[in-house]
């Protein structure tokens, strides 16, 4: 027994001596963090790549088109033969129309679903409904676009005879359906994180579940809910395929939702799927439009970040 122990001790010591002598191992330990840092810097490089590309190509665009014409021009005719016009306001109007309709659809339905899931539903119901919402969030946008074009638009045309085949209403509604799960699940997270003691306090005072939900939980979770809506708006602004398929390609600076429109994203798709030659003004214009789009979504994401950081109630 004693002999065996000493033999083991000896072998452990030998092992330690052996392994501490390995220089290779020390080298690996030193190299790994550096290699991993290099890998981690790929995401930083991506951001620099995006911002850099957009700025460089946009600057070239602004050598050919005046900045003021671009920012304040109310007409967008890049394919005109005589005089090309690059005023971005019609594209922004198209984007805002679709986003506005999407918000009108998604916010009431999303928040109502969140209240139902967080305040009323049993665990069992929640376990059934949440995965279905996840499926809805996982449907590729091209499928939604096809659905908007071939189902929602004909359906709406039965109620609104003036509705054109390409319009802002149908893609707007479908974009709303697309961002609905995002609002529902993020808002539900915000509401679920309100502590139960507060709910129980209100219930003990004789409140109904509705009063608890609207007067206690909703105000407490407001920052999270607002942040979820802002993030969803950012997603709606950047949405591309639904509006490309069902929105049309005639940018107009007005607030009519029954006629063909064009959003910033749809313009980029239109130009890149056609053959706008490399180096033409039209080619550079997609970067200027992309840059504008990028700034819009960046602003929205920053806003969501500030709202959820600054106005969060701590318990």
């Amino acid at each position, binding site marked *: 027994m004693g002999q065996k122990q000493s033999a083991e001790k000896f072998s452990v010591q030998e092992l*330690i001596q052996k392994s501490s002598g390995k220089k290779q*191992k020390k080298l690996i330990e030193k190299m790994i*963090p550096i*290699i*991993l*840092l290099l*890998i*981690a810097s*790929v*995401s*930083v490089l*991506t951001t620099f*790549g995006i911002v850099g*590309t*957009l700025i460089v*190509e946009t600057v070239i665009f602004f050598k050919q088109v005046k900045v003021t014409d671009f920012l304040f021009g109310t007409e967008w005719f890049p394919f005109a033969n005589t005089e090309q016009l690059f005023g971005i306001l019609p594209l922004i109007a198209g984007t805002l129309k679709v986003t506005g309709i999407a918000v009108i659809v998604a916010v*009431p339905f999303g928040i*109502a679903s969140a209240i*139902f*899931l967080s305040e*009323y*539903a049993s665990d069992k119901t929640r376990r059934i409904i949440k995965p*279905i*919402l996840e499926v*809805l969030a*996982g*449907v*590729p*946008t*091209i*499928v939604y*676009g*096809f*659905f908007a*074009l*071939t*189902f929602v638009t004909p359906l709406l045309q039965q109620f609104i005879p003036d509705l054109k085949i390409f319009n802002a209403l149908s893609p707007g509604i479908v974009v709303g*359906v697309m961002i609905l*799960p995002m609002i*529902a699940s993020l808002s539900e997270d915000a509401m679920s994180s309100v502590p139960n003691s507060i709910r129980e306090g209100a219930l003990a005072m004789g409140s*109904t*579940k*509705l009063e608890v939900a609207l007067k206690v939980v909703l105000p407490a979770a407001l920052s999270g809910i607002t942040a979820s809506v802002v993030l969803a708006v*950012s997603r709606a602004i950047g949405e*591309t*395929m639904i509006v*490309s*398929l069902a929105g049309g390609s005639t940018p107009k600076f007005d607030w009519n939702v029954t006629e063909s429109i064009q959003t910033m*994203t749809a313009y*980029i*798709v239109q130009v*890149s*799927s056609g053959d706008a030659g490399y180096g033409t003004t039209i080619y550079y214009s997609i*970067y200027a439009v*992309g840059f504008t789009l*990028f700034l819009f*979504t*960046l602003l929205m*994401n920053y806003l969501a*970040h500030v709202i959820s950081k600054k106005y969060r109630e701590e318990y």
Partner: protein
Amino acid sequence: MRYVNHEAVVKKMNKRLIVNGIFKTIFFAATLFALLVLAVLFYRIISQGVGYLTPEFFQNFGSRVPEKAGIKAALIGSIWLMCVVAPVSIILGVGTAIYLEEYATKNKLNDFIRMNISNLAGVPSVVFGLLGLTIFVRALALGNSVLAAGFTMSLLILPVIIVGAQEAIRAVPQDVREASYGMGATKWQTILNVVLPSAIPGILTGAILALSRAVGETAPLVVIGIPVIVHFLPENLLSQFTALPMQIYDWAKRPQEAFQYVASAGILVLMIFLLIMNSIAIFIRNKFSKRY
């Protein structure tokens, strides 16, 4: 003397309970709305597309004639695309996650990397397409190849994979790491032999879900100029190719009504592709995930 009017209280209480009941129904109906849309969407696509899902549909290339149009090039192309996206995005994503969770100390550089990843997650996919077009297609002269599209898609889903892998690594309890150090293991040995094996189910689940997003993503492919009518299969990573969502986009745009049904059939193939990927993810999550 009564201070409380019993009848009035009962009446008020009943009214509040009724309002509660009504609103409960409204909230439930709103939740059902989403489910209803999903049901209609699936019903439409299945009823329209199932008739076109013939063996020929999988053997034919794209065509101007709806009856002869097939999905072979797009399906094989999407599989090729995944063969680039999966290794590139998982290596980059898991590497970044290990760095951030295990090595990164709290300093400005690492805060910047973290902030940068959350910002990147909010950039619209079409903007990633512009990045891919400029850097991979033009500057690196990869053309509209499998490789260029694969790199673009990898960068697009990178933030999702990083965040998923970070959560999986964070879920490995500290005790296990300390036990490993206690046995004399070095940091890298601990990560490689202790942390990663128990985090892998979580990492893979997140990665497969991110990859299924890449399968259905269309906008970046359009922007980098992936062709839609392709009559050959990719031979290597620098070949031209087309992918499922591109093919569907092309069919959906066509004015002939018959192409609507072809598009539905294409969507069915895409959805089955996604379903298989998601089932694998759920299988891995249920089978291999450990609870501490």
